[in-house]
């Protein structure tokens, strides 16, 4: 015969302080799991949505994978566009975007600012970077910049500091913010864009970092790669934009592995904490458990009831953490080396977080319950 369902539920209310403490401990562990999984999912999502299948990046062969270190001749865009037929061309405008891209210290109003990512672009940029949308203000004029949705997070600044009309300082100049843009969660969202010519003047550079080209349907990035191989004097390399971000995913693989390892460690630590707490909870109920055995309840039924209590607490903790994570953590901007991205509490994060929570309830309750049930009934009845 099983113990009534209400027995386990009422038991939780009989020791409110202990129950509340256990609930907080379980909720904290589940919250930590949510944070770490949300971090991994956010990073993966940011890199996954960055890039366009039809865009090819041409940059220096000497910069390895890092476009920020790339330096190519200013004539490269016209050379590449003239040598290849596969680029989109509409109304006599070739969709080739010359860009100067670098990390530099950016100071915002009222704060010291931080390392920002600045991209000098021309009017061709939005033709090639099709996910970029101006959500507020205007395209930058002379001495003006537009800032991405996550630029403030990347700079370690506030959203108010990068409002339209304010100014930011970098490369020894003050730049007025003329607009803000979004890019569907892509990496550009943590960048600041200004006019290419202005940026070249400010940085005293004549070269470029990269050329981004929008390929017409049916064209292959291999043709651009072949051009780069043939023109060895230019020292260029070409890569499909999605492959570039996929290689960054590979680059951040150790970080992601470490983060998953943290999930395992946190869960492990949580299970031990849960075990400790449940041992305490069960230890104080040895007489009660023995009494239940004495009046005829089987060990299995008592064990199930104890696990039920653990699972109920863990489920409540997971629910509590889930609500907090979804309302407060989801979408929170995180600063990272490559820019910034948002924590993503998606279905996978919820599944893993709640799974770990329920596991804590079951695994945490089983060993102390088994230990208590193994004791002699007569001895246990005399226990204090």
């Amino acid at each position: 015969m099983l113990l009534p369902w209400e027995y386990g539920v009422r038991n939780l209310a009989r020791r409110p302080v202990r129950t509340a403490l256990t609930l907080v401990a379980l909720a904290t562990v589940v919250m930590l799991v949510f944070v770490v999984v949300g971090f991994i999912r956010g990073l993966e999502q940011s890199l996954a949505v960055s890039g366009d299948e039809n865009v090819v990046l041409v940059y220096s062969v000497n910069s390895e994978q890092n476009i920020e270190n790339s330096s190519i001749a200013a004539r490269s865009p016209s050379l590449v566009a003239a040598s290849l037929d596969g680029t989109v061309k509409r109304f006599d405008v070739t969709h080739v975007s010359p860009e100067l891209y670098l990390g530099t210290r950016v100071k915002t109003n009222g704060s010291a600012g931080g390392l920002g990512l600045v991209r000098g672009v021309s009017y061709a940029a939005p033709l090639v970077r099709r996910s970029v949308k101006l959500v507020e203000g205007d395209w930058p004029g002379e001495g003006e910049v537009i800032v991405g949705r996550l630029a403030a997070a990347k700079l370690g600044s506030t959203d108010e500091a990068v409002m339209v009309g304010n100014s930011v300082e970098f490369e020894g100049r003050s730049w007025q913010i003329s607009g803000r843009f979004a890019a569907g969660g892509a990496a550009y969202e943590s960048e600041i864009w200004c006019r290419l010519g202005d940026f070249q003047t400010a940085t005293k550079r004549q070269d470029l970092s990269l050329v981004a080209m929008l390929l017409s349907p049916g064209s292959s990035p291999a043709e651009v790669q072949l051009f780069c191989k043939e023109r060895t004097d230019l020292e260029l390399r070409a890569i499909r934009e999605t492959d570039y971000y996929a290689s960054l995913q590979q680059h951040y693989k150790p970080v992601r592995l470490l983060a998953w390892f943290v999930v395992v460690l946190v869960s492990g630590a949580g299970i031990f904490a849960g075990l400790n707490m449940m041992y305490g909870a069960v230890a104080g109920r040895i007489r009660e458990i023995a009494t239940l055995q004495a009046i005829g309840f089987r060990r299995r039924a008592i064990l199930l009831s104890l696990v039920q209590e653990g699972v109920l607490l863990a489920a409540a903790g997971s629910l509590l953490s889930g609500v907090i994570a979804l309302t407060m953590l989801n979408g929170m901007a995180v600063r990272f080396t490559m820019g910034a991205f948002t924590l993503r509490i998606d279905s996978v994060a919820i599944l893993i977080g709640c799974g770990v929570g329920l596991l804590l309830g079951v695994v945490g309750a089983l060993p102390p319950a088994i230990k208590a049930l193994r004791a002699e009934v007569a001895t246990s009845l005399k226990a204090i």
Partner: protein
Amino acid sequence: MKINLSVALVGLSLLAVGCGQTETATTQSKTVEVDTRYAATTEPANAVPVGEARNKSEDGQDITLVGVIGGSNKPFVEGIAAFTVVDPKVPYCAAEEGCPTPWDYCCTQDQVKENVATIKIVDDSGKPITKDAREFLNVKELSTVVVTGKAKRDDQGNLTVAASKVFVRTEK
């Protein structure tokens, strides 16, 4: 508890083994069905090394050159049968120097500039084959190849060979 510890240790070991994989997999030779339309069965005579070909060949001239596939960490063009070759006289990094991709000539990059050529394998109409060269020639990075084709030169001294036949020297 002992069982739990063992499971955890096995898991960690698997994780460590997974992390330890390197790029050496790309150098593993695979069984390739060689396309005899482009693969020569006998080595053409009088092949000139890449460096010499860069100095002496003219645009449109028929040429036979010998080179080692390499010059960058990705010498093959994915999606087109093309790759870069370096003059065999240019030494690449020795295995004991700990270079994971010796075909990028990272120890002798300054010598590569004047001793590199691009090979693109073309069909009868002169169009590049839209297939990775590794898929139909038994080649990989650091394979020595003897190529027969037409030279294409430009004002900057770059040499591209539109190859009709490629002979792959067997490794010693």
